[in-house]
């Protein structure tokens, strides 16, 4: 297996992230002898995506407060093949840094015009596009005066089990990166930078919204730990 292939993912044993202490397994992960990479399931039988599900600014009577943005990019596998028809689901805090979730106790206002969830299917080239507002940073109790950098949660769901990915997209130039144990759990800076979107003039609409470009790369369809020694 190429050493690059999986080492980009953060180890679950990341003690700086307090929630991991009682949840990260203690035993080493077992190498899978089967052909996991070939496992595919039919995706989303009977499921429908609404035509406005990708636009988080148009889900209520009024517009949400905040900086209007477009986030767009492509979903590829590591061999460069586009993932067409993959389900992309996103969720995020509002512009004040508050999630529309009962468990979020941050003393910041909810926005009646923002639920903070969207979804779409990638097109034939693996492309996706969301319209939303820039989420705010928010405090959490991981360590004294801890703040999460602004981020959007992304879930990529394709028919291949090995390609399943849940991650977070960050915004360029955020001063909060270095104190965030979630982002810093990714072992190397180069890999961390792949979680940071790029501001894009091309995606920025004049007198309307800022644009951010962010591509996502998931494992190849046939990737298995035994690829290197599998019989021809």
């Amino acid at each position: 297996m190429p050493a690059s292939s999986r080492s980009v993912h953060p180890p679950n044993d990341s003690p700086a992230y307090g929630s991991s202490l009682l949840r990260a397994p203690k035993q080493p992960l077992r190498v899978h002898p089967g052909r996991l990479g070939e496992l595919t399931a039919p995706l989303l039988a009977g499921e429908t995506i609404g035509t406005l599900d990708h636009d988080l600014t148009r889900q209520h009577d009024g517009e949400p407060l905040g900086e209007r943005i477009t986030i767009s990019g492509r979903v590829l596998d590591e061999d460069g093949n586009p993932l067409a028809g993959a389900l992309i689901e996103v969720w995020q805090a509002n512009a004040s840094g508050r999630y529309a979730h009962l468990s979020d106790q941050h003393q910041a206002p909810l926005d009646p015009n923002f639920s903070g969830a969207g979804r779409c299917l990638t097109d034939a080239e693996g492309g996706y596009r969301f319209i939303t507002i820039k989420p705010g940073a928010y405090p959490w109790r991981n360590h004294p005066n801890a703040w999460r950098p602004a981020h959007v949660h992304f879930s990529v769901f394709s028919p291949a089990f090995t390609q399943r990915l849940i991650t977070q997209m960050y915004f360029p130039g955020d001063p909060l990166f270095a104190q965030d144990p979630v982002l810093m759990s990714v072992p190397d800076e180069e890999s961390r930078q792949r979680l940071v979107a790029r501001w894009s003039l091309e995606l920025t609409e004049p007198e309307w919204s800022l644009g951010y470009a962010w591509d996502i790369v998931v494992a190849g369809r046939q990737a298995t730990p035994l690829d290197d020694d599998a019989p021809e």
Partner: protein
Amino acid sequence: MTLPLTPSQTVGPFFRIGLATTIGAHVAGEGTPGAVRISGQVFDGAGEPVPDGLIETWQAEGAGRCPTDDEGHFAIVTTKPARNAVDHSGVEAPHLDVSVFARGLLTRLVTRMYFPDEDEANAADPVLGSLSDAERATLVAVTDDGGLRFDIHLQGARETVFFDR
């Protein structure tokens, strides 16, 4: 061409906002012949239920998804998959591939659920065969109240066997 992968990040505590409705807990509809209800609880290293986890099951027939409730419970209704033929390592017994996501997990955990009424196939399964008896027991569901029960222990003496994706 090999492109560098996008790293994983935790699903966090608020995923129900975005992941609640799209994929459901019914891989097989109610009344489907052979449909079985698989339920379980997710526990942390202190033996406490994990109330903000997300379980996904994967098989050729489809995918199921269920968030855990306040007591760590999940339930998915599906059918037993056919045997999987595999390569030189042997023939696998019917099983579900399972992903576990939760706050506190930076990368998903991958495990498998085998069926308790498949003694012969389970005995020949190369994955189960590579494990000790105690480890194997963490992957085989038990019959429970007309369905199957499959508890997941993230840590501890009964820690579930997890695989390298």
